[in-house]
């Protein structure tokens, strides 16, 4: 019976990878973002998860529109990063936990989630950056990637993603293979890269989202995906990964740390720690 030690959220703007590569953490532009990390790293040092689940969205590295899954679960021993076309340094392969992946897959299909199973899977910056940020020494635990479609509408609803997270939480509760698991969300918060509304950010919505995510995530289901696009931007839909993460941690979890900073690149950046 694994224990879910807590949930972590972070934005994953590709430029963060460039900043890490160039050592710009103390640069005035980047400092407010990187300053959000030490409390999370201390918590991780104390709570020592031996595996992580990462809810993220693929940005056109592993998946294309010929086979675009709503939910995809990795089940590989290693996940390779690769060239995304923007000159980010390619990361060393990340370790998987195939036994845990299959345990999660079995449970999800039993609970009527129609997932796509990936025994080989390239992982992009959205998977890699949280591990680089939270474990800067490269000692991140092995991971189970779960990708949520944010590329092509129709997207899964907030309610569906919350249910997905809860089903993953149930699977972890019945898992005997490792003792302590952290759940990570990668994405958001509000931002829009495309169209005449590019640069749209909605701080009021983000703050309210963070409050409700902690206290009453079911209430967020009142927002349709169309509402989320309107309120959080076309790429703000990445908050679906945060909703899934919220579902996987214990209902009584509270916000232990939050750092919200606008802007990083075009994005309202945030790091969050939820724990019982």
């Amino acid at each position, binding site marked *: 019976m694994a224990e879910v030690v807590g949930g972590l959220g972070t934005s994953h703007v590709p430029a963060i990878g460039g900043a890490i590569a160039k050592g710009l953490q103390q640069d005035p532009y980047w400092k407010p973002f990187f300053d959000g990390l030490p409390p999370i790293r201390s918590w991780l040092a104390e709570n020592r998860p031996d595996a992580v689940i990462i809810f993220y969205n693929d940005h*056109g590295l592993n998946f294309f529109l010929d086979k675009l899954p709503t939910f995809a679960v990795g089940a590989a021993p290693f996940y390779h990063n690769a060239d995304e*076309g923007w000159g980010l340094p390619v990361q060393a392969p990340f370790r998987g936990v195939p036994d845990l992946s299959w345990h999660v897959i079995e449970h999800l299909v039993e609970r009527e989630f129609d997932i796509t199973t990936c025994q080989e899977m390239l992982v992009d910056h959205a998977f890699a950056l949280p591990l680089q940020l939270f474990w800067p020494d490269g000692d991140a635990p092995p991971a189970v990637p779960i990708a949520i479609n944010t590329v092509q*509408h129709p997207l899964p609803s907030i309610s569906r993603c919350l249910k997905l997270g809860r089903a993953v939480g149930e699977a972890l509760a019945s898992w005997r293979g490792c003792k302590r698991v952290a759940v990570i969300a990668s994405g958001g918060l509000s931002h829009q890269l495309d169209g*005449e509304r590019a*640069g749209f950010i909605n701080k009021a919505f983000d703050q309210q989202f963070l409050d409700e995510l902690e206290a009453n995530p079911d209430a967020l289901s009142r927002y349709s995906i*169309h509402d989320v*696009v309107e309120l959080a931007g076309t790429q703000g839909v990445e908050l679906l990964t945060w909703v899934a993460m919220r579902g996987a941690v214990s209902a009584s979890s509270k916000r232990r740390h939050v750092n919200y900073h*606008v802007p990083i*690149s*075009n994005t309202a950046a945030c790091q969050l720690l939820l724990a019982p």
Partner: protein
Amino acid sequence: METSRRPIQGTTIFDGAQAMKGYALNKMCFSFNSAENRAAFAADEGAYCRRFDLSEAQIKAMRERDVLGLLALGGNIYYLAKFAGILGLNVQDVGALQTGMTVEAFKAKLLAAGGGNG
């Protein structure tokens, strides 16, 4: 397909209708994950576009770096970002292009959105 969604100013939803229009364009941009393909595109943009069966309108929009035009013709920003990468443009440059602002003004707008950070 739902065609009756309320419009959102300055925003195109990448749905089935857009995905159908843009399949070839997005497939070409997806190919830019490979350095070899990026080089082949740079060597002869028109030939590369035709190899992927882009429409004439899409080829013209590619040639003119017309991001809004590419979006209207079914381009998806996640794939178009790889085209922007070839051009050496970051997301703020692309934001400025689309909003008709200078990059400085676009950055100032983003900073203003965070006003009262904390």
